[in-house]
């Protein structure tokens, strides 16, 4: 439920009186922190103003469920970002907005939660971060259903949400909200980037068959593949839903018409993809047709390492990109964890820094101002070349990488995929009045009545 937004100090008073009420067991312990940032120029909203010397970020990631391994890598990215924000290092040294001395003079601390890849668990976890821990920003995702659920909560609570991994069109389409931003590309862009590449590689006039994870992401993913492959001259035989979290795909795979289909598209991610792809190879489907995995991630590539040779897909980012931002992030991450980061770690890292930088540009944590500082912002320091955080739907406009799996003999622990091409953002995306953005209504900033 929506929380009230009354003036400052309430929680500190609360703690103090809680102490008093508990018959003095706590003495005056609750009083610390009262009196920081007294002269705030904006009205209280969400968890603004930030009291005391610390500002709390909430990292709400899957620590269990289909996408838990992603979640672990995201957490590593978040923690690294926090460390750099407080002590300098990594991108913080190169971004003019950031000082390495916290954000707006306050030290960054964090709380973590487990979404269990379940939208409602994620909402309750985010609710706790907002109500109890006073998080000013929540970040997370790794299942679009979760990201969509949490971003709608954040809109109600007037707390910023920074999308991590969420690839569904709906996140910045029909379900978009003012308080959420997404840098990651979406299924629509995957279709745009991937279709021409596979059409050129495999020929024009093919029949394709799709399996997709039956939830928000899988549904928009298969719809986008259908749209762009059909535009490229292919024709769809059928598109079949599979429940999220399926471990045995053999019955779905044996229904694939081998003599009819020229390509099989597996719209599965995380553990699902790690199960379905090897099973498809085991059944020998790759002998009869081309297999395509629209969205790669590391877990899937690792689990299916023997099967990914030559298989096309897209990825958010790759550690081998040769720009200075990518390399400095890889270096910093490697120092911490002794292996290269996956793209989940980069998005987590980037989203945290993006928020901090926007707050610095705005000069305040006041959410409407932070949002305005981020809308329409152009940047090229996040490892993916020039990017724009578009104002009309909060969808990042950026390049998309098309990857191909390396044959098993060329793979190393950190290098499973090769970069085939980078589709420039000029050839991707859609206008504010078309594609998923046409259904997006962002909602209010929260300061309309007072401003």
């Amino acid at each position, binding site marked *: 439920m929506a929380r009230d937004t009354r003036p400052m100090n309430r929680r500190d008073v609360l703690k103090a009186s809680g102490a008093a*009420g508990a018959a003095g067991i706590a003495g005056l312990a609750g009083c610390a922190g009262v009196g920081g940032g007294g002269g705030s120029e904006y009205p209280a909203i969400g968890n603004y103003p930030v009291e005391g010397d610390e500002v709390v970020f909430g990292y709400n990631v899957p620590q*269990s469920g289909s996408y838990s391994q992603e979640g672990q890598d995201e957490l590593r990215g978040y923690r690294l970002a926090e460390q750099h924000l407080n002590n300098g290092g990594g991108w913080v040294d190169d971004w003019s907005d950031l000082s390495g001395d916290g954000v707006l003079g306050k030290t960054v601390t964090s709380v973590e939660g*487990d979404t269990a890849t379940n939208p*409602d668990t994620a*909402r309750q*976890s985010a609710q706790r971060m907002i*109500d109890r821990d006073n998080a000013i920003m929540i970040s997370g995702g790794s299942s679009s259903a979760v990201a969509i*659920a949490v971003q709608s*909560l954040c809109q109600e609570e007037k707390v910023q949400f920074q999308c991590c991994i969420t690839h569904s069109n709906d996140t910045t389409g029909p379900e978009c909200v003012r308080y959420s931003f997404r840098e990651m590309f979406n299924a629509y862009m995957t279709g745009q980037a991937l279709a021409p590449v596979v059409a050129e590689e495999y020929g024009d006039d093919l029949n394709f068959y799709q399996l997709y994870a*039956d939830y928000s992401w899988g549904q928009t993913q298969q719809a986008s593949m259908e749209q762009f492959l059909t535009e490229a001259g292919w024709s769809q035989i059928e598109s079949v839903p599979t429940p999220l979290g399926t471990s045995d795909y053999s019955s779905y795979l044996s229904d694939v018409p081998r003599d009819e289909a020229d390509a099989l598209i597996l719209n599965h991610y995380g553990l699902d993809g790690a199960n379905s792809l090897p099973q498809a190879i085991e059944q020998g489907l790759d002998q009869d047709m081309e297999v395509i995995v629209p969205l790669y991630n590391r877990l899937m590539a690792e689990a299916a390492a023997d099967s990914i040779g030559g298989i096309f897909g897209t990825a958010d980012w790759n550690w081998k990109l040769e720009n200075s931002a990518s390399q400095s992030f890889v270096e910093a991450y490697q120092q911490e964890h002794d292996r290269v980061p996956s793209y989940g770690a980069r998005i987590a890292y980037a989203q945290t820094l993006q928020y901090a930088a926007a707050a610095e540009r705005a000069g305040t944590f006041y959410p409407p101002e932070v949002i305005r500082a981020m809308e329409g912002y152009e940047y090229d320091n996040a490892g993916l070349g020039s990017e724009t955080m578009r104002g009309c739907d909060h969808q990042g406009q950026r390049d998309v990488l098309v990857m191909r799996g390396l044959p098993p003999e060329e793979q190393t622990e950190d290098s499973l995929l090769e970069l085939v091409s980078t589709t420039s953002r000029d050839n991707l995306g859609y206008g504010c009045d078309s594609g998923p953005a046409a259904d997006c209504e962002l909602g209010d900033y929260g300061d309309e009545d007072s401003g």
Partner: protein
Amino acid sequence: MTDDLDRAEEADPVTDGGSTVTETERTSAGGSGLAGLRERDDFVVIATAAALVVFPFLLVDVLGVVGDLIGMSIGGYAGLPSLVLIYGIIVIGFNLLLGYTGLLSFGHAAFFGSAAYSAALFSQIVPSPILMVIVGSLVATLLAWPIGFVSIRRSGVYFAVLTLTFGQALYFYALGPGAWLTNGDNGFSDVAAHGLFLGALPLDAPLLPVFDSYTVMYAFTAVMMLIAVWVGNRIINSPYGLIFEALGENEQRVEFVGLNVFRYKLMAFVISAVFAGVGGAMFLIHEQYIHPTTGLYWIQSGDFVIMTVLGGTGSLIGPVFGAFVFEYVANVISGVNPPVIGPIGSLWRFVLGAVFVFIVWVFPRGIYGALSDLGAWLLGRSGGGDDGSDPAATDGGESE
């Protein structure tokens, strides 16, 4: 909701009042030793009300301060007390079925979720929380009738699996074919509940100036909880409720006495579904969001069972303790980061499992049983006898 129950009680034929009932009453009074407490309707309600008044303060403020002192965030947060009570309402009803009538339903999420969805859809037309609760519980009741009618015909594991099947059917419907209605996997978030009394009292408005866990929503939930306790207490004290308990103890005997076992079991099923429906609608109003995985998935039904057994099936409010421990572990302990162990995170189900095993192993009657044993022991020291256990148990409830 009360209308339904009143009707249920009225439906009880006058002829049931005779020797049958005195017989069962005698059995149960001797058996459970709760007869003394049961007579005291007003006492139960007043004790519950007192506990409801201090509950958020203890959970949010006192535990918050303790958490600050020991450096771990073990305090609750503003929305948690309401959430506990909502699950409390559900498990009170669930326990009427499991603890008293002895029927283990594994499909109560169906009533919970369908009430939540119908309340959500109804809110598009009339954004009134009270009407949403009424509509939600009405839908749950109407749904429980046919599901109960089919499932009750079998007992034991067959009954459990039948209810589970109905629940899962609804789950798959909500996720796939019914997505036009439920918004499928994106979850239903366009809930409009403006406030009580034609929006005059917004649900998130604070009741007390400093304690922000005392909101209108909490008061609303607390009142619903009180009604649930009162109704539950009336049911188990009525001749009708005693037949439920007799059914739980020995179905054949009840049949031999000449009662229509099927009809009583169906009614117990429907009554518990009404509680689940009220809880489901309240949950929706509280969360302003519902997703098939929360509303209808079988794990939700399993959670009801765990809460009930954890709290203790032998008493009216016992399961509420289970709901409290469950939600506390799920929502607070999961975010704790103890020095040596590290973040609990997804290990919360492991923690809950450990608590569950411990409680069920050491105190087979659940947390409530443990508290009443503790009370009996304390009272025993000050000279109380066997019968002292009941008031002592209720004291435990208050100070919790």
